[in-house]
């Protein structure tokens, strides 16, 4: 049944879409990825990927969404079902339900950490306690234990989830749009304040060991040799893919509430570039320059070598802010506050497709749908919290937050171009456009974008150890086989690199491998259940129309 909900304002829609894209990765992942992949040279493949894959994929998802919205669908199964006559199309939408509910489970948990850190920054916890001591206690991580039941972490997780459910239950314009209109400007204000404070740190100030510009140089100094390295290109394309929050069905869901003759081309471009502004200009000038000023470049290089700024952001920065005197609690609240706003505008976008599915296909009232979403996320999130030390959180993150997105995006792009048809697709993108979309993008959308996504997928599946593709090919042709990286899809699937693959140790206790495999079983069951719900919804639909 069609709902008549609409966005309140155009600016609100663009801010909500930008908020969906802007997430914790803009501030934690991007600077670390840029620094370890050739610095300024990383930006060349990064921007090329944005133009050839990011923007076209945004247009594809906006077009799929607005098209399906005309028929009263606002979630991936219905949106994809309207792209062709094939009955199986709707089942690809399983990914659009599965990823949102599973990613929300671990993402809301991380979001709740930022809320807890705002609180602890304000009350001055980090003046007396090092975050490196605080964080394991907060998570309830103990040596040799696979389980944790941390009361405070549970409290903040439940609080964050309740806030998400409450905002979602208020509806599109009065809930999600209002949250974006408040959250995004505050995020920008906090980030700009911290960037200015960080970059103007005096080299003679107490605690400062190096100019923050040395950190900026680390991020931006171009190492042109990186341009010839396929790893740099894959890292850049991967970063663009994940930063835009494509491949989840959330963009299509938001766009489905746009009138069929209203613009999507300009709105999509505006939201995409806004995300780039936050990521490259603000995200690239915050974490690493401040950390470099107080720790020195060598320490920063070591802690970002894995391509994640998580350690610097959560375990180091709160201590460094102590050097800022009276401004320290405020700086901590601003840093974690901006991460919280980045997080919540994204988690709301994960909730809306689920609510839309329950409303459209099963006629569940919005408030009840929001509570159902909250309960499901709480149950799945409980697994992430409880089995965090055993690796359940990492499993959720990888299989739902990385792998499933790429598969879904590739499916969407292929269906849009080859089943819906590029002629109808191009008409859909350009109808009502307030921006003249260059015709070259028709070719890009048809051939280049799917190819880019395929490369990202293959890169993730077959990533070789150390990221050295040349050496891996040499190894393959010399008969020594392909050296899969333990973090690649194949590597994870077959537990490559783990010392001994066994579910129980010699004392009969469960191992990490057991937790990992049980988590995968749970994720598979959730995936199958989402598929079942789609089947059930279409059965009911057929019965109603009969």
């Amino acid at each position: 049944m069609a709902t008549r909900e609409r966005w309140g304002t155009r600016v609100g829609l663009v801010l909500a879409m930008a908020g969906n894209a802007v997430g914790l990765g803009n501030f934690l992942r991007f600077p670390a990825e840029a620094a370890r992949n050739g610095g300024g040279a990383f930006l060349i493949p990064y921007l090329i990927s944005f133009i050839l894959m990011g923007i076209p994929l945004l247009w594809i998802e906006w077009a799929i969404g607005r098209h399906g919205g005309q028929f009263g669908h606002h979630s991936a199964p219905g949106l994809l079902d309207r792209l062709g006559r094939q009955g199986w199309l709707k089942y690809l939408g399983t990914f659009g339900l599965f990823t949102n509910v599973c990613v929300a489970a671990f993402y809301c948990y991380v979001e709740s950490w930022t809320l807890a850190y705002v609180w602890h920054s304000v009350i001055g916890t980090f003046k007396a306690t090092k975050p490196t001591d605080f964080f394991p206690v907060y998570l309830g991580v103990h040596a040799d234990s696979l389980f944790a039941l941390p009361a405070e972490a549970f409290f903040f997780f439940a609080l964050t989830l309740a806030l998400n459910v409450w905002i979602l239950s208020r509806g599109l314009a009065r809930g999600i749009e209002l949250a974006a209109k408040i959250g995004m400007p505050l995020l920008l204000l906090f980030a700009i304040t911290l960037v200015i404070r960080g970059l103007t740190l005096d080299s003679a100030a107490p605690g400062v060991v190096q100019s923050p510009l040395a950190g900026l140089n680390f991020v931006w100094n171009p190492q042109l040799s990186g341009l010839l390295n396929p790893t740099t290109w894959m890292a850049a394309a991967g970063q663009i893919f994940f930063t835009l929050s494509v491949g989840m069905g959330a963009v299509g869901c938001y766009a489905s509430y746009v009138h069929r003759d209203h613009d999507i081309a300009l709105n999509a471009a505006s939201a995409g570039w806004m995300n780039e502004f936050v990521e490259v200009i603000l995200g690239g000038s915050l974490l690493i320059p401040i950390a470099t000023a107080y720790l020195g470049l060598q320490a920063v290089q070591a802690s970002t070598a894995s391509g994640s700024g998580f350690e610097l952001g959560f375990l180091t920065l709160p201590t460094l802010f102590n050097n800022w005197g009276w401004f320290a609690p405020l700086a901590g609240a601003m840093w974690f506050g901006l991460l919280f706003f980045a997080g919540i505008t994204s988690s709301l976008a994960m909730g809306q497709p689920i609510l839309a599915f329950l409303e459209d296909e099963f006629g569940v009232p919005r408030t009840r749908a929001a509570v159902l979403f909250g309960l499901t996320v709480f149950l799945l999130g409980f697994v992430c919290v409880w089995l965090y030390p055993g690796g359940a959180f990492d499993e959720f993150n990888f299989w739902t937050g990385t792998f499933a997105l790429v598969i879904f995006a590739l499916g969407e792009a292929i269906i849009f171009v080859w089943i819906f048809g590029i002629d109808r697709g191009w008409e859909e993108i350009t109808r009502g456009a307030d921006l003249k979309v260059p015709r070259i993008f028709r070719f890009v959308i048809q051939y280049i974008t799917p190819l880019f996504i395929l490369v990202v997928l293959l890169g993730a599946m077959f990533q070789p150890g150390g990221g050295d593709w040349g050496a891996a090919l040499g190894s393959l042709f010399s008969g020594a086989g392909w050296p899969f990286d333990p973090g690649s899809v194949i590597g994870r699937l077959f537990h490559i690199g783990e010392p001994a693959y066994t579910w129980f140790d010699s004392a009969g206790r469960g191992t990490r491998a057991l937790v990992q495999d049980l988590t995968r079983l749970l994720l598979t069951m959730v995936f199958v259940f989402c598929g079942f719900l789609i089947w059930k919804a279409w059965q009911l639909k057929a019965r109603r129309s009969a």
Partner: protein
Amino acid sequence: MTAAAWTMLAITWAVITFYTIKYFWMVVKTPPRSDQD
């Protein structure tokens, strides 16, 4: 900061800021067509 780093930073920041402001300004200034529901 090296000259190369400054150059990369200046060009990238200029391009991103230009398009972010240009498109957002167009969004603000172009009212949506009247709803035909």
